[in-house]
């Protein structure tokens, strides 16, 4: 602690770095966030995306807290600015007493009336001193920790991990740049503003990852060995992650010519006995509809990840939205059983992806894991992931057939059974020969259009999920005697949790149900909560209130009200709090 300085003690901190796309804004934010995550804080990092490659404003906002937080803060405490646009664009977020640290190079100025403190630091010049102007980001990091009264060596580990492969010299230079920023502030900074974070409660064993990372790792852990996909924002990371890892496990990733190829390829792979997946976003999902029907009809277990972004059409390719619910539930022609899982945190992304592969094989149907841009791309603190918790269950997979039981007949791949699920054999097995077709077929898979067979086969397939409610289909939190129930799914968990916390702390009686399984829809479970509420409010990031309408569709009969946002950005907790306050 530095003597003679007044510190404001913070439960949590909101920090942002802004500049031009291509200036390394991202990695600056991530370095800061990772360092604080390692220190045991709960961190949430959200990047302001745009579909431009270079140029154009971008920023990375980091929230650092002593409690788990799954959303950006409404406000800002510290803004690091590499250009004037970053100040002008973000200054309104600064809360009183906030700090702007800006590069001297562009002669920064605060807008008239801004209640913030401006530190002008020669980022570029100091970086040059340390070795190269590209390290101006490091200088900014150093300045940041000075204001936070943290030691510069919190960055040592991250810097080492990032640059070690480029040699010790690069590591040293970067640390030096950080120190330059720190020292400059120490020498030239005044005491106008100084912030201090409460010590972290966390163990420091936490991970820091985005939903896409967790899905990739989840897939690997679940035994996914064939991945086929076509690049698309915000799903591409999943493919790119698996491209890096598959060689370690003898698997393969194919970057296909389009999404249609991708889904048909994984259907082929799954038919062949591999655990297989694809990942895409809205436009690709739309293209996959025909083959999703094929997977349903042929009872082939595939996993499809849909990372939602702003629609319709190309829409807002780098912005957040939750508007593919209808498409994932109802997009394909005809009627198939289908499972849709909707994780809401990176941790859930991991475990639900694992579950997706199990469910796909247990129920022999396509499983869609639906996320949204904020969940896919925002980085968050994650509790240590447990390999022991992962069980691979391949359902009714048959790897050996006694041909003498067949009486010269084909294998009954689509045998009528009590639960509608039939033994599944894979090509290569002696005695397992059968036929697979998207045409209506009989028990051995041969085309059969007779009315009686048709009706029975439709029943068989649909029966697999009829009346089923999967474990943990939703999570509930709140007081026993709640009056209002807030319902949401996906990444809005974060903003909802905070808004609810705040409302309850003000004496309202508000509970929160977050839906994790969209199909088969947990009508029974959800009803037990909606029936007890005076007031049900559905919170979602789309224009038409998809979840609320789907609830009706699936038989939730209580009236609901909707809070929607569809401007490309996730809810901010305070904003949502304000909206809900008027409704509870």
């Amino acid at each position, binding site marked *: 602690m530095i003597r003679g300085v007044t510190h404001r003690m913070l439960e949590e901190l909101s920090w942002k770095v802004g500049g031009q796309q291509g200036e390394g804004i991202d990695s600056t934010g991530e370095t800061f966030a990772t360092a604080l995550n390692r220190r045991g804080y709960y961190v949430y990092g959200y990047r302001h995306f745009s579909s431009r490659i270079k140029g154009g404003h971008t920023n990375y906002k980091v929230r650092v807290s002593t409690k788990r937080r799954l959303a950006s803060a409404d406000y800002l405490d510290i803004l690091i600015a590499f250009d004037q646009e970053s100040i002008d664009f973000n200054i309104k977020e600064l809360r009183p007493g906030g700090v702007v640290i800006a590069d001297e190079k562009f002669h920064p100025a605060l807008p008239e009336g801004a209640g913030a403190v401006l530190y002008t630091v020669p980022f570029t010049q100091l970086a040059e001193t340390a070795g190269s102007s590209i390290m101006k980001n490091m200088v900014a990091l150093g300045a940041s920790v000075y204001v936070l009264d943290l030691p510069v060596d919190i960055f040592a580990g991250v810097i080492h991990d990032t640059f070690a492969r480029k040699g010790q010299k690069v590591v040293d230079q970067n640390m030096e740049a950080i120190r330059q920023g720190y020292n400059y502030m120490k020498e030239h900074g005044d005491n106008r503003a100084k912030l201090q974070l409460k010590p972290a409660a966390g163990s420091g064993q936490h991970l820091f990852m985005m939903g896409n990372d967790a899905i990739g790792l989840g897939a690997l852990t*679940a035994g996914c060995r064939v991945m086929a996909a076509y690049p698309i924002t915000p799903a591409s990371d999943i493919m790119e992650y698996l491209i890096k890892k598959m060689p370690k496990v003898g698997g393969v990733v194919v970057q296909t010519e389009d999404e249609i190829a991708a889904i048909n390829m994984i*259907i082929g792979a799954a038919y062949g006995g591999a655990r297989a997946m694809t990942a895409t976003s809205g436009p690709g999902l739309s293209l996959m509809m025909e083959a999703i029907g094929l997977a349903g009809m042929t009872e082939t277990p595939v996993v499809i990840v849909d990372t939602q972004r702003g629609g319709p059409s190309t829409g807002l390719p780098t912005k957040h939205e939750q508007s593919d619910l209808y498409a994932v539930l109802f997009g394909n022609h005809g009627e198939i059983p289908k499972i849709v899982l909707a994780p809401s945190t990176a941790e859930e992304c991991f475990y639900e992806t694992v579950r997706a592969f199990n469910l796909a094989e247990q129920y022999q149907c396509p499983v869609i894991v639906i996320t949204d841009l904020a969940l896919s791309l925002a980085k968050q603190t994650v509790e240590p992931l447990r390999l022991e918790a992962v069980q691979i269950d391949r359902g009714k997979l048959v790897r050996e057939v006694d041909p003498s039981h067949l009486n010269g007949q084909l294998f009954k791949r689509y045998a009528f059974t009590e639960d509608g699920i039939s033994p599944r054999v894979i090509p290569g097995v002696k005695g397992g020969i059968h036929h697979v*077709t998207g045409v209506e077929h009989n028990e051995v898979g041969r085309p059969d259009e007779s009315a009686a067979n048709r009706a029975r086969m439709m029943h068989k397939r649909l029966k697999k999920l009829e009346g089923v409610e999967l474990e943990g289909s939703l999570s509930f939190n709140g007081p026993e005697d709640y009056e209002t129930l807030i319902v949401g799914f996906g990444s809005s968990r974060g903003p909802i949790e905070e808004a609810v916390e705040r409302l309850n702390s003000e004496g309202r009686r508000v509970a929160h149900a977050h839906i994790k399984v969209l199909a088969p829809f947990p009508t029974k479970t959800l009803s037990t909560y909606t029936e007890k509420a005076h007031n049900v409010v559905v919170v979602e990031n789309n224009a038409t209130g998809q979840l609320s309408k789907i609830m009706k569709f699936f038989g939730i009969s209580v009236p609901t009200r909707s809070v929607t946002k569809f401007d490309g950005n996730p809810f901010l907790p305070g904003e949502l709090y304000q909206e809900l306050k008027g409704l509870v």
Partner: protein
Amino acid sequence: MATVKDFRNNVRPNWCPGCGDFSVQAAIQRALANLGLEPEQVAVVSGIGCSGRISGYINTYGFHGVHGRALPAAQGLKLANRDLTVIAAGGDGDGFGIGLGHFIHAVRRNLDITYIVMDNQIYGLTKGQTSPTSAHGFKAKTTPNGNIEHAVGPVQVALAAGIGFVAQGFSSEINQLTRLVEEAIRYKGFALVNVFSPCVTFNKVNTYDWFKQHIVNLEEDPAYDPTDRVRAMQKVLETGGLCIGLIYKEERPSYEELIPGFKPEPIAWQNLELDPAVFEECVREFA
């Protein structure tokens, strides 16, 4: 060891009597027997069309996917189980109409699968519409005044796209066809066998007789060298695509052989559990 009989099943094809596809079915069955394969070691993946029904008429594993997507599915299957002999099959509409993009990309990718197209220059199953291999001027249900598009030459395009093995056959030349299919299966990489397989019901132009009159059999030209791509291209252009026999062949590693870290043991039979050390290593990256 399996004989041709073992590759037959008890299903009567729903093809019209005289359809060229019967010969293709027989040629595949014979080729498989000749190669000493067992039925369960083989999978036929087919698209939608009259021809696409073929996967149900051969006693092997069979997968009948959606229209135009036999190749992506076949490639996925091969990746899951590299020990299988994977044959993709379908019609000209399926493979060179809706599926044309997949075809060329499969050529580029070069997995070790065999693609057999029953090219009848017509859409059979949907009852006689003009197909992408129908000639300019061809009259059919959807071109009553004559086709104003130009036919795609599958072999030409495949050669231009860098295919490693391409042959053409004719339903009336079942022995040659059997040999070509055999050789295609033996070839380590993506192999196309395009078969002139007349549709006796809807294509009144490209009949058995018409083919007999127009086709050039490359096997009758001892000077023909199927290892020269430019020469092959010239030959195909010269004959208007109407040549049969082995057209081009070039040895090179297949896709599976180039995948980093890919194992000789098929994925389908591997233990899926992740090595805890690998898991740890992966997790550490996020710490």
